[in-house]
């Protein structure tokens, strides 16, 4: 977009070759994006190896943690974890492990980190996924309304509320919600994802019931971003000439908004949503911890407090990979949404 295309009028006989070339270009574009992501991913894998080796302390000591273990046992563990090998060897083992989705064995759970992640990923996906959908929908809707009536009382109240919520530490908000709505009014459970002993279809309303407070917390602190972005990009679009054109065509305001302004304004917002998604997963750490939501965030928190290095390291890679993946998706999606940046 920035390098506004020079007028390239394909001379008819050249049209075919142009199309071929655009195919190559498209491939190159996707290749570049994919390659970039892989490089980033590799960098993350590399970092995580060294990052978690500069942390002082001996994992075996961390693991045996005040247990009456004999000196032989400690050495056995050291061998088990490959800590007696050279750094290069350790790196190789680690690297090949990661490539096989083997992220090592958690100190505190005595299970492969991959398994743990497998167990916990769905609650997080459920919570974070729902929160992203809800906050995006809410944020976009309010953003559109705000921009269309910008400067009005409703808009100012809306923005004010959103910014205030955005300024709230999410864990603090969570605590207060628990006090008010769970223990005070008793409307919602204080924590957890489901009640014990609920089976079958009844689990759905049960989980939903449990999810309300964490969801509200997560949405409350996140939606402001979507709102602000949507609002400002829509305001940008509203000043555009093509909007005047659309109005000049005799379209009704609602149609102008729906058919012209919003789709254009959505472009930056959608990428933001995706880029954000990777981070929201991570932001769930706080909320999941407060609400004992059995997801990755809580797992991470529990790993932090030990610290359970393989677990934290594995989650580090996972969270980073999520961000990279979402960035990639955004990169790949953008051309689909915006013909101008189509390679």
């Amino acid at each position: 977009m920035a390098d506004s295309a020079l007028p390239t009028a394909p001379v008819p006989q050249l049209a075919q070759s142009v199309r071929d070339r655009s195919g190559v270009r498209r491939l190159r574009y996707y290749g570049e994006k994919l390659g970039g992501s892989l490089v980033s991913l590799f960098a993350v894998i590399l970092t995580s190896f060294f990052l978690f080796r500069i942390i002082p302390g001996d994992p075996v000591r961390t693991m045996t943690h005040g247990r009456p273990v004999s000196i032989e046992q400690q050495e056995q563990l050291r061998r088990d974890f490959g800590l007696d090998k050279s750094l290069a060897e350790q790196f190789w083992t680690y690297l090949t492990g990661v490539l096989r989705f083997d992220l090592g064995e958690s100190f505190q759970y005595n299970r492969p980190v991959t398994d743990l992640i497998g167990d916990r990923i769905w609650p997080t996906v459920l919570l974070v996924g729902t929160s992203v959908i809800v906050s995006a929908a809410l944020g976009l809707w309010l953003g559109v309304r705000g921009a269309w009536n910008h400067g009005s009382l409703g808009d100012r109240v809306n923005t004010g509320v959103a910014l205030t919520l955005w300024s709230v530490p999410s864990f603090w908000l969570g605590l207060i919600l628990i006090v008010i709505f769970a223990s005070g009014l008793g409307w919602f459970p204080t924590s957890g994802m489901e009640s014990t002993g609920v089976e079958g279809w009844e689990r759905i309303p049960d989980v939903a019931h449990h999810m309300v407070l964490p969801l509200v917390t997560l949405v409350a602190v996140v939606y402001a971003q979507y709102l602000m972005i949507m609002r400002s990009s829509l305001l940008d679009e509203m000043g555009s000439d093509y909007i005047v054109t659309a109005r000049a065509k005799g379209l009704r305001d609602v149609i102008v908004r729906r058919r012209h302004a919003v789709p254009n304004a959505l472009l930056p917002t959608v990428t933001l949503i995706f880029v954000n998604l990777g981070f929201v997963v991570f932001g769930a750490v706080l909320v999941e911890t407060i609400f004992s939501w059995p997801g990755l965030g809580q797992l991470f928190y529990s790993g932090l407090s030990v610290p359970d290095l393989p677990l934290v390291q594995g989650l580090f890679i996972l969270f980073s990979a999520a961000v990279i993946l979402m960035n990639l998706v955004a990169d790949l999606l953008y051309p689909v949404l915006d013909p101008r940046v189509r390679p």
Partner: protein
Amino acid sequence: MALLEVSDLTVTYRTAGGDVPAVRGVSFALDAGQKLGLAGESGCGKSTMALALLRLLPKTARLTGEIRFDGEDLLTMSWGRLRAVRWAGASIVFQGAMHSLNAVQRIGAQIAEPIRLHSRAGEAAARKRAGELLEHVGLPARRADAYPHELSGGQRQRVMIAMALACDPKLIVADEPTTALDVMIQAQILTLIESLVAEQGISLLMISHDLSVLADTCDRLAVMYAGRIVEEGPAAAVFGAARHPYGQALAAAFPRIGDPASRRRPQGLAGDPPDPAELPPGCAFHPRCAVRLDHCDAVDPSLWPAGSGEGARAACVRVLPDDGLSLVPAAKESA
């Protein structure tokens, strides 16, 4: 009867820095099939006027006066009726086609949109008509699937023209349709507009800052300065023998190649264009006027028949009987 009759139109923008009178009492008429050119330097209110014609101005603009289109007053018309007049009655070609087209919609859909809206045509019919229109402006119909950015500036401007023609309007307002374009493409577009308008008997209001271009295209010319029309008349009369000093200066600014008079002698107008928010008293042009009279800062002349040609008028004290001295307020006289 005139197709478009604007009388005493004023537009004032309310801004944080105070009111900006962008258009200050403009009156003119445009007959069916006629081509009127509106010239003037940047900021004199041309676009504001163009947008005012279809009430497309932002909410911060206040309009007074009367705009009669086909006998109806557009300023008092209901929104529903106004929407019907928009595009079907009068359509607009804007200057920046890149920005006036929706970048993420295919051009075919954008052309078809007003067709479907105004003629209640079906999807397929509208598409077909869009294709025809594209052919009409010299683009292959299959380009309907293109996005604006895939077209060159000239092609985009053609798309705008095709779009303007979509609902067979009675009037097309072209606001600087060629300004950003290259000489050669400018010529292409102007030729195209001229031929289409002639062919379909559409009225044209063409806005430009290039008097020479307008003189070449239009039947009549109006020159605007600081929100007013200061000179109006048949094209040749205005371009060749303007009576208002600004009109003269503007005409002289376009050299005639081969004319030794302008060789190595660029003609300009000293001083700066006026700021509509702080207009000088009296005739707004007087600070830059080379033939200024003493009382020019006190008299704000209106259009007065002057010069050659039918209905030629100018707004200058010098065309008034007794140099407009009779209009000087008493206070000034004594001073």
